[in-house]
């Protein structure tokens, strides 16, 4: 039993808050929730949607078909005709907006022309509470608990003062009474379970994962779809030992993060891939300086400014190769909110322990969608790693870049006596002094590359989703797992399973061989045109995957569409 709800309207009408409140209402019923947002790169106007999929069963993405559509204007119906049918209910304001719903009768959906704006105006003097009105009606139609929704509204507006809360509750009551009299109930959710989850975006999950991982300095420049990481962390200053700096450009963001990391604090930056492009030079700096660093990157379609508010997975090869010189790095590729949280936290440990730059590579679909995930622990402990002993020998014999078997060398930090050294962008000797010596150059490069061998046992292993044996084995990374999990659930048992890469670099060669040798037919599913994971697999294993499903129109995958393609492949 799952419900699919969507609100659509012009930007500036509070579409996202509406979706968030509905998602939380479902969450507090103990359901799993997924919230998907679509919007153009505008502040006002343009068509915005927010879609919630909720169920007591696992939920990892949205689907095309909608049970209940809240249409705040006519476009909200006309642009979504393929998503509604005779099972759907549409709440609209046709009279108020001056159009006739009868022209959409062919969809078979039941249209209810309800006075959302009027109820809002009557109770609050303003149209803005129409979102609360539409939600109260939705709560009735879907048989949700109105008391839970009342609490969500109270929590949502309490920062704005009692008066605002009270106004909204008046609108809520009015709308709910109206709905009880005039609207039907479909798919009523009679059940309630204790809630043990939180509901947040991939961006939020990265941010609180960073907090759990002990982030202390965060510098960034805003860029969709990663700006929310900056917003979230900025709001947590004062509550945690954290400095967040919105800097002049991405170049500075990366260089500031490196500067802070050099002093011993845990540092991070984030951007979209376009913004990260400006950080490439400093990526190389972090590598030669052996500074721990975490970089969260959100993909969106390019080239150049591309489609700012849409999704893709077209920058895997870019991130793998970013940085001049041979830059050792770890590339983590989370999909679910929980993965975003856990892998970001892990990234801080890996970066500090191995003096590496660690990427958390995600995309618009994951970062800006809202997902439920188990509530994290209330306390996280952070040990500190790979610092030089204190005190250091008084004879100043300490060597910051000592050639070691494991590739990283315990680091001194400014302020520490007898740890003086140069942290150098030039190739250097063990003390950090610049060198052009052939042997030392070779040894330093080898030392840095050895870190990737050391770090490998600590990386998240490949994940097999679904049965061990299946007719078709789908291969994916990052956010695509969310949709493929749904594919596994929807298809007959034993037909498909999925190999998900939570970390693509260093490449999990042994793990992949292990899964691949049992696979009957491998199909790579990626949000790009060139098959970037497919290329990487061939490069690292020699395995040529012959089937693929690619999408590169800015839209996320839909389970329905993938299933259709898989059915064709099976014939």
């Amino acid at each position, binding site marked *: 039993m799952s419900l699919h709800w969507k609100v659509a309207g012009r930007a500036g009408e509070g579409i996202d808050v509406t979706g968030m409140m509905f998602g939380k209402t479902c969450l507090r019923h103990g359901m799993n929730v997924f919230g998907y947002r679509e919007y153009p790169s505008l502040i006002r106007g343009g068509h915005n949607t927010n879609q919630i999929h909720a169920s007591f069963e696992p939920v990892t993405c949205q689907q095309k078909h909608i049970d209940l559509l809240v249409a705040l204007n006519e476009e909200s119906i006309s642009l979504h005709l393929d998503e509604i049918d005779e099972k759907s209910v549409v709440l609209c304001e046709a009279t108020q907006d001056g159009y006739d719903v009868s022209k959409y009768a062919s969809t078979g959906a039941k249209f209810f022309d309800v006075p959302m704006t009027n109820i809002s105006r009557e109770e609050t003097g303003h149209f803005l509470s129409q979102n609360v009105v539409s939600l109260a009606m939705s709560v009735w139609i879907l048989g949700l608990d109105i008391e839970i929704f009342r609490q969500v509204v109270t929590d949502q507006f309490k920062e704005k003062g009692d008066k605002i809360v009270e106004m909204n509750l008046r609108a809520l009551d009015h709308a709910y009474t109206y709905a009880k009299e005039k609207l039907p109930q479909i798919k009523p959710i009679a059940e309630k379970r204790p809630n043990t989850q939180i509901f947040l975006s991939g961006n939020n999950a990265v941010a609180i994962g960073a907090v759990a991982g*002990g982030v202390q300095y965060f510098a960034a420049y805003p860029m969709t779809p990663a700006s929310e990481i900056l917003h979230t962390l900025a709001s947590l200053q004062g509550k945690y030992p954290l400095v967040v700096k919105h800097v002049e450009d991405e170049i*500075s963001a990366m260089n500031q993060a490196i500067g802070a990391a050099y002093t011993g604090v845990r540092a991070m930056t984030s951007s979209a891939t376009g913004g990260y492009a400006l950080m490439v030079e400093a990526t190389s700096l972090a590598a030669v300086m052996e500074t721990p660093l975490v970089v969260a990157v959100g993909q969106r379609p390019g080239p150049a400014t591309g489609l700012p508010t849409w999704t893709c997975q077209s920058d895997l090869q870019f991130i793998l190769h970013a940085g001049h010189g041979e830059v050792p790095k770890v590339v983590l590729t989370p999909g679910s909110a929980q993965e975003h949280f856990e892998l970001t936290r892990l990234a801080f440990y890996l970066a500090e322990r191995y003096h590496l730059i660690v990427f958390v590579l995600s995309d618009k679909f994951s970062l800006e969608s809202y997902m439920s995930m188990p509530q994290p622990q209330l306390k996280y402990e952070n040990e500190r790693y790979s610092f030089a002993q204190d005190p250091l020998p008084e004879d100043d014999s300490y060597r910051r870049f000592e050639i070691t078997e494991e590739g990283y060398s315990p680091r001194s930090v400014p302020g520490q006596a007898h740890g003086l050294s140069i942290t150098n962008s030039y190739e250097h*000797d063990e003390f950090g002094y610049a060198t052009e010596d052939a042997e030392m150059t070779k040894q330093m490069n080898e030392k840095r590359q050895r870190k990737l061998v050391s770090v490998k046992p600590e990386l998240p292993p490949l994940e097999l989703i679904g049965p061990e044996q299946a007719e078709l084995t789908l291969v994916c990374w990052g956010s695509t797992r969310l949709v493929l999990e749904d594919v596994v659930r929807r298809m007959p048992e034993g037909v498909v399973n999925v190999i998900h890469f939570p970390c693509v670099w260093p490449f999990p060669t042994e793990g992949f061989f292990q899964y691949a040798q049992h696979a009957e037919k491998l199909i790579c599913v990626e949000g790009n045109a060139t098959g970037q994971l497919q290329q990487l697999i061939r490069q690292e294993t020699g395995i040529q995957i012959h089937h693929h499903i690619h999408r590169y129109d800015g839209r996320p995958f839909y389970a329905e569409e993938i299933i259709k393609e898989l059915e064709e492949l099976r014939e």
Partner: protein
Amino acid sequence: MSIKRLLTPALIGKGQMPTIFSSDQHQQKTVTPAQDWQKAERTEMNEVAAATLPDNSAPATDSPPVVIDPKPEKHAYINRASLESPYFPTWCPGCGNFGVWTALKNALVELQIPEQELVIVYGVGCSGNMADFNRVYGFHALHGRAISNAVAIKAANHRLKVIVVAGDGDTYGEGLNHFISAMRGNHDITLLVHDNQVYGLTTGQTAPTTDKGTKTKSTPFGSPEVPINPIGMALTADATFIARGFAGNIRHLTEMIKRAILHPGFSLVDMFQPCFTFNKVNTYHYFRERIYDLQQNEFEANHKVLAWEKTFDHEKLPIGIFYEDPYSVPFHASLSQLEEKPLTELSIAEVDMTEAIAPYV
């Protein structure tokens, strides 16, 4: 080593720098052949430098040393010997960098800074090559980016003194955005700009400070842009300490650097620094004929508009302090989370997630 060889362009890079010392030689007190070679070169270089720098380089003793360290017994202060690295400069003989280097060392010694509490961030250029010649916590950055690294180093640990040593191409060209932002934020760093009005390390191209019409390797028909006005720019970006020095007047430059380091907030010292090899116009002689000391001419560094007028003076070139804000509050002091201790000393050993997850329940 002959002077002729020292003048070859290859040396301006790292071409002739002695490469690896086997690691332990850094600590050896006995003289190795390599050190012997350095010593010989050092004497030779000093002679050249002395010949081309008529101004005496005796340390200024006007003001008493300011003690910054509350627990002096616990630390080793910077002194001339502690600053010595195993390498001697590869700069051309007569290079203005020698004057700047001497003044910087004078200032560091006179200010009695504990050696581990200083970080020098270097840009990339002839000036940045100073990284290998000072024994300090050094950070040799990317070209143009030193200021970004430096502001974060200071924000993360404000107990440190943070100095940026960079060139005019580095600061006013490649890194201009960071320069302006650091001033707007009043980050407590001291920026020493070697302003030689030419690109030296890349062997003589036009710089952002080169006069319009100057013929260089990259502008064989004359540089098409007017030069940047760094002091004017610093005034408009609300820098709280703005001064200019001259590599040929080490006593004065030492004072400027000391004042800059002691200033709480952003401090700029733009330094006329003749490049013997690639700038045949802006020489020691050129500057000596034109410079005058603002403070000796009763200029009070507390009025932005008057300072602004001075920056347009081309016949006579003012050095000294253009502007100083006595009420300056540095960036780190404006952050409440750093009130008690620097970020580096705040613990992350145990993180309570309650507040972080509250909005998502």
